[in-house]
């Protein structure tokens, strides 16, 4: 995962510094805590992240009183790629950050408006005697408001839409589509086969599709027969555990 973030670090008595740092780190779900902790433990000794502009992972650097880039790199396992002095070009970064916000706003708007439209067919009732439509409409309208606010706050992203934000890793984009096809067809083959043919064929199909599809996306693809062994072994395992062990009533073989 690649993260970019704008850092504003400040030491007492020192001038404010800004920098654009590339952070590359494992998908360790670290993004989850970063912002959670930020408001609680941030203090003027720590480096501060510009509110609203940071995204992705900032993290352990919080706990270092003096905030040198080395320490950030060390604790977060990040590599600082670039260091842009104050007033440097941050627009690029900001635009892409705003853009996800803007698009989420659009998504919320769509859900909110269609939610209102669908719920408007339900009887609304009064506040004292709410009909089935009252609460859904209230929620949908709130959602519409949130979506509008997100779009308005990030309206600058709209102007930048036509302009390219520079490098877009093309390979990752196609990898995403391929991953989607692999996973969906694996799940799909299970859903299509389970009813008519039973657990064993559905499970074998699901595993075979997932293994040979997934193999094409991975650096270490292993040996070709691994998938067959895996499919047979795991199918036997799940039939034993789920059908005979736990006793889930499911047909195993086609009738």
């Amino acid at each position, binding site marked *: 995962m690649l993260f970019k973030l704008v850092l504003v670090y400040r030491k007492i008595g020192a001038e404010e510094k800004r920098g654009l740092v590339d952070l590359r780190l494992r998908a360790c779900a670290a993004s989850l805590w970063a912002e*959670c902790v930020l*408001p609680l433990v941030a203090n003027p000794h720590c480096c501060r992240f510009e509110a609203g502009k940071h995204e992705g992972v900032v993290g352990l650097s919080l706990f270092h009183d003096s905030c040198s880039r080395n320490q950030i790199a060390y604790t977060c396992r990040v590599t600082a790629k670039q260091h842009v002095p104050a007033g440097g070009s941050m627009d690029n970064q900001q635009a892409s950050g705003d853009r996800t916000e803007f698009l*989420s706003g659009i998504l919320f708007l769509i859900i909110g408006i269609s939610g209102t439209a669908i719920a408007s067919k339900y009887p609304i009732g009064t506040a004292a005697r709410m009909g089935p439509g009252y609460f*859904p409409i209230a929620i949908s309208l709130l959602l519409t408001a949130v979506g509008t606010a997100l779009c308005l706050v990030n309206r600058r992203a709209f102007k930048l839409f036509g302009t390219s934000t520079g490098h877009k890793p093309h390979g990752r984009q196609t990898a995403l589509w391929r991953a989607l096809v692999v*996973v969906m067809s694996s*799940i799909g083959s299970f859903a299509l086969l389970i*009813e008519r043919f039973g657990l064993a064929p559905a499970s074998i199909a699901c595993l075979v599709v997932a293994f040979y599809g997934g193999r094409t996306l991975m650096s270490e693809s*292993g040996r070709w027969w691994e998938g067959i062994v895996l499919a047979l072994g795991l199918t036997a395992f799940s039939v034993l555990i789920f059908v005979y062990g736990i006793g889930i009533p499911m047909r195993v073989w086609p009738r």
Partner: protein
Amino acid sequence: MSDLLAHLQTGFHAAFTWQALLYCFAGVTLGTFIGVLPGIGPLAAIAMLLPLTYYLSPIDGLIFLAGVYYGALYGGSTTAILLRLPGTAASAVICIDGYQMARAGRANVALVMTTVASFVGGCVAVVIIAAFSPPLARFAISMGPAEYASLMVFGLVTAAVMSQGSLLKGAGMILVGLLIGLVGMDVNAGMLRYTFGISALADGLSIVALAMGLFGVAEVLQNLVSGGAGRVLSTRFSMRDLIPSRADLRQSRDAMLRGTGIGSALGILPGAGPAMASFVSYAVEKRVARDPSRFGEGAIEGIAGPEASNNAAAQTSFIPTLTLGIPGDAVMALILGALMIHGITPGPNVMNSHPELFWGLVVSFWIGNVFLLILNLPLIGIWIRLLSIPYRMLLPAIILFMCIGVYSLNRNPVDVGIVAFFGIIGLIFYKLKCEAAPLILGFILGPMLEEYTRRALLLSRGDPMVFLDRPVSLTFLLASLAIMLWAISPLIANRFRQMK
């Protein structure tokens, strides 16, 4: 006091059956396994295991899921120390000093310390749960619908504030969750809402399908795109010197106690959780240390504190979940989902109508921690070897277990399709950097919030002032407002500074 003993006795009766012990053991083992594997987090794992509990009794199911949860926290630390790969978000902080200790040849001590610290944190948290839950539940029973609605609003606002990304996004995700929660038959009027003519949706969307799609499938997709998470790493690991020196113990004793306190407090708050607890604990340890420069170089307090803290938080987060019926985070929402699968309505009545469920769970925490103590130390070598399972093998297995799990609920292939659908939605959210956890909270609370609002307004004849007139309700609403202001104040301050 005698009350407490009687309660604990009920718990011991419920938790010391063969099945309960078996599922507790299975839960912590599976949890450790999941925590060690980097490709799959506790949230996705619990979503995948949720359907299994349908076939267990409620108490066994709950004990099992809880075991998976804190077992995963345990396992995550092991890989954090030895390989600097945090298995869960909560153990990310363990990497800092734990890995340094391992490099200095003190891996054994670090591992033993995490186990001991988790054990201490867990044990103290059990006492806290046992002491605080009954009064909280008694208080909760006296709350009317208006208070409940306000409490839910408070929980949701906190979750939105604590969520990753901007406040507006968090709020939006919660509202989407609330809306999705309304899918299905409206209880009062018997009207179908948002079902799009799909009969499988008449009973509402199943939390299993939703969570599996949003967390399970989306996680699998991300791992696939990044080329698979697993990779073979070899480590030398000797079993000698498992016992930490007296100096180590003395150094970490206070850290453990402080961590437990922090974790217990943060676990109860909605929106916080083990990950946050371990980070705050680390920050505190560093602050109180006489020589802060040791941190990052293998300070033993740097693992003892956070580890005790995250385990305590994982357990105390059950307090609001079970006494109020308000889940603090997505994992707790799934636990509530497991209760609902069994037809148990979450809320303060759970403690009265199912005392064996509550106290059995509390006692099982303690049993589970003993299991982990026994399980983790001698078997660390085996856990480490699990890391060499390549992701190409793991991926088909994860997909298959998800399919079987969700299909087994109603034996309806449409449910499998719903998982796939929400997998795509989850991917969109991921691309838009919207966190899906608040959505699950909204989903669980949506129908309840509607019901309580309805009842409150029915009683007040449609007068919305009922939410402000009642002091408890007003307190919750004011607290929500305060948290929201606190969250946006840096934004406004920043704007101000820019204008100047």
